[in-house]
C-alpha cells in the first residue's frame, strides 16, 4: 500500500485490475485504492509477472502492506504452475532440472516516497491487540480507557466486531468529506507544529500578461483557451530553477532536493476538501501543455481518477484562488515539502506607472517557505523572478 501523502495511514483496496499470471509493465495501473482523498489508481513500479494478489478486494490495510507480489519467473512449484498468458509465445521448455532457485519475488510497494513521520500510533495493549484480531474488532474505532488512553482488553470486549464488508466490489465511490477533513487536519497540524514558516509577498502588475492571453485566446475555440492560472504556473515553474532550495523535502533534519520540479496543483473538490496532484516536470512543459495538464487533473480529481504517484510526487505546491477567491493567501506548507506558493484573485487597483496613477490589474503572489530549508531572502528572489517573467510574458 503506497503512501499517497504525508497524512495517509491506510487505504482500502477496492479493485484489482490484474490477476496472477498477468504480465505488467512499470507504470501500468494495477489496482484502485480508496483513500481519504477518494479512489486512487495505483501504478506498479516494476515490470514482471504477477505471482500473487496478497490483499483481497475490500480490505483496508496500513501503508507499507504488501499488496501483491510480482516476479520475473513463475512462483515456486509448490502450487501447480499455471502458464502465464505470455507463455504461449515462448518456445516450449523441457522440464527444468531442479537447480534453479525461484527468483525472489518483489513486492509491489513503491519505495523511497518522501518519508513522512508516522502519525502517533494509537496505544493498544498487546493483549487487546491479540483479542481484537481474534474477534475482528477494528481498533481504529475504539476509544481506550487504559493508561495513557490505551485500548485494553475490556475496551475490545465492549466493542462489536466489525461486520465483514457487505459490498466488496465498491469502487470510485468518491471521497468521504469527513475523512478528508481529518486527513487535511492531520497534515496541516503537523505542518504548523513542525515547520517554521516565513512568508514573503509581492504584488505583480499583470496588464501585459493579460493582454497577451487575450490575444492568444481570441484566436482559439473555448476548450483550448489558456487561463491566467496557467500563465502564473508557467512563470513559477521557470522561476523555481533559480531557487532549488525551495524545491524538495525536509527529511531527517536536512533538505532533500526534489528529483525534478513536480508542482502540486491544489484543486478544491466539490463538497469540500482539496487535493494537490503533481504536474510532473512542470519546468519543461509549454504553456499549452501546462493548461492541458491542469484541465486533466481537475477533471480526474473531481471524478476520483487520480493516480497514486500523482499524489506523492509533488516537490512544491501552488494554490491559485481563481476569480472567486480572496485577494491573497498565506499558504500552509504540505509536509514534507519546503515551500508553497499562493496566488490571489486578479484585482484592479490604482497603480503607479511612469509617475502617474492608473487602474491596473494586479495579483498578489505569496511564498510560504520552510525557514529550516531557506531564508526569506531567497524567497524574495523567487517572487522577483516570477514578477520579471510575467512582465515579459511573451517569452512564457
Amino acid at each position, binding site marked *: 500500500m503506497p503512501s499517497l501523502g504525508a497524512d495517509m495511514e491506510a487505504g482500502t483496496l477496492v479493485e484489482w485490475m490484474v490477476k496472477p499470471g498477468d504480465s505488467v509493465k512499470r507504470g501500468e495501473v494495477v489496482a484502485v485504492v480508496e483513500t481519504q482523498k477518494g479512489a486512487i489508481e495505483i501504478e506498479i513500479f516494476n515490470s514482471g509477472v504477477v505471482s500473487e494478489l496478497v490483499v483481497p478486494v475490500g480490505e483496508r490495510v496500513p501503508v507499507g502492506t504488501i499488496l501483491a507480489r510480482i516476479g520475473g519467473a513463475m512462483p515456486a512449484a509448490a502450487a501447480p504452475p499455471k502458464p502465464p498468458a505470455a507463455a504461449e509465445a515462448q518456445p516450449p521448455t523441457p522440464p527444468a532440472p531442479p537447480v534453479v532457485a525461484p527468483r525472489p519475488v518483489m513486492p509491489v510497494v513503491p519505495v523511497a516516497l518522501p518519508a513522512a513521520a508516522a502519525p502517533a500510533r494509537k496505544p493498544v495493549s*498487546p493483549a487487546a491487540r491479540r483479542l481484537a484480531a481474534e474477534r475482528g474488532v477494528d481498533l481504529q474505532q475504539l476509544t481506550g480507557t487504559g*493508561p495513557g488512553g490505551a485500548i485494553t482488553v475490556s475496551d475490545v470486549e465492549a466493542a462489536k466486531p466489525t461486520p465483514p464488508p457487505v459490498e466488496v466490489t465498491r469502487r470510485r465511490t468518491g471521497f468521504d468529506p469527513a475523512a478528508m477533513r481529518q486527513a487535511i487536519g492531520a497534515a496541516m497540524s503537523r505542518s504548523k507544529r513542525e515547520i517554521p514558516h516565513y512568508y514573503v509577498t509581492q504584488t505583480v502588475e499583470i496588464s501585459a500578461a493579460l493582454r497577451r492571453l487575450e490575444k492568444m485566446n481570441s484566436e482559439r475555440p473555448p476548450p483550448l483557451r489558456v487561463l491566467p492560472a496557467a500563465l502564473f504556473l508557467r512563470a513559477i515553474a521557470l522561476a523555481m530553477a533559480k531557487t532549488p532550495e525551495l524545491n524538495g523535502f525536509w527529511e531527517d533534519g536536512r533538505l532533500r532536493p526534489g528529483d525534478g520540479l513536480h508542482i502540486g496543483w491544489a484543486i478544491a473538490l466539490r463538497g469540500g476538501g482539496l487535493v494537490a496532484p503533481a504536474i510532473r516536470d512542470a519546468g519543461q512543459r509549454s504553456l499549452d501543455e501546462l493548461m492541458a495538464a491542469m484541465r486533466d487533473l481537475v477533471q480526474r480529481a473531481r471524478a476520483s481518477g487520480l493516480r497514486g504517484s500523482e499524489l506523492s510526487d509533488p516537490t512544491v505546491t501552488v494554490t491559485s484562488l481563481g476569480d472567486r477567491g480572496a485577494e491573497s493567501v498565506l499558504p500552509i506548507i504540505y509536509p514534507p515539502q519546503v515551500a508553497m506558493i499562493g496566488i490571489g484573485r486578479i484585482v484592479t487597483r490604482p497603480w503607479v506607472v511612469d509617475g502617474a496613477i492608473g487602474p491596473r490589474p494586479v495579483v498578489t503572489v505569496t511564498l510560504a517557505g520552510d525557514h529550516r530549508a531557506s531564508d526569506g531572502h531567497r524567497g524574495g528572489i523567487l517572487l522577483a523572478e516570477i514578477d520579471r517573467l510575467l512582465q515579459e510574458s511573451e517569452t512564457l
Partner: protein
Amino acid sequence: MSDTRTTSQRMTYREACKQAIRDAILADPRVFLMGEDVARYGGCYAVTKGLADELGEERIRDTPLSEGGYVGAGIGAALAGMRPIVEIMTVNFSLLALDQIVNSAASIPHMSGGQFAVPMVIRMATGAGRQLAAQHSHSLEGWYAHIPGLKVLAPATVEDARYMLKPALDDPNPVLIFEHIMLYAREDDLDPAVTAVDIVSAKIRRPGRDVTLITYGGSLFKTLEAAELLRQDGIEAEVIDLRVLRPLDMPTILGSVARTRRVVIVDEGWKSGSLSAEIAARIVEQAFFELDAPIRRVCSHEVPIPYAAHLEEAAVPQVPAIVAAARGLVKGE
C-alpha cells in the same frame, strides 16, 4: 526435632529465625553459626540471644570484624564437610565478602566440576526503616540474585523464617537468606500442620483478578495492605510473594499475569539494573501478549538511603505509592 507442637503458636519473626537455627544445630552436629556479635551479644538484631548459653560457643561463634575472613572460613568449613550458617550483620557489610561469596562460594562447585560442594548458608539483614543510614540500610539482594551458583531466599513470613533454613542447609549449594530488618518484630501464628516449606516456589499470598503485585521480603506486608485498600476501590489485587529471588519461579508469575494482565513490581531495591527490572524483562519476554497495560514498578528512589526518618520513609516504597500504581493501571490513570 525437639518440638512437636499440636496447637498454633504465636511468635515473632526474630524468634522464628532463632528457633530455626536452634533446631538445625540440635539436629545436625555439622551445623554451627558464626558471625559478628552473635554469641556474647546475642546478635545485632537479637536473633541469637541466649543461644550461646544453651548451645555453647563451639556452635555459636563470635568472629572478628572481618567479613572476608569469616565468610572465607565458612566456605572452608563447608568444603571440609561442615554445614556452617554464617551471619553477616547487614548486606551492606557483605560487600567486604563479595570476593568470597561470588568468586569462591558460587564458583568452586562449578570450577571443580562438581567435586566440591559448598553447602553453606549465609544469613544477612537487609533493608531500610530503622534510621541506620546509607551504610546499613540498602537492599542489595538483587545483586546476589544476579550470580549463578547461588540460591537467594527472602523469607517474609514468620512461617518462612521458621522453616526455610532447613532446606537451605540441605541444599549442596551456597544459599543466601535475606531477613528484612523491619520484619524481625512482626508476630504471627504458626500453623501446627506446617512443619516444612520449599525453597523453590513463589506463593500467592492473596488471590485477585485485576492486577498482580509482585514483591518479597520487607515490602510484602506493605503490598498486602495496599491490596486491602485497593479492594475498597473495587480492585482485586493478587499479591505474589517471590520468597526465592534466585532462581525465580516464573511459572507462578506468568500464570498470575495471564489472569490479571497487569503487573506492579514492588521492590525496596533501586530500579536501575535490578531484580525488578529482571522480572519486568522476563514478563515482557515470556508473556508480552498477555499484558493489557505497561508494567509498573514501585521501588526505592535512586539515592543512598537517607538517615533522617522522613527522608528514609520517602525514599522506599510505601503503601500509597503501591495503591496509586495499581489503581492507575486498572483505572487508566
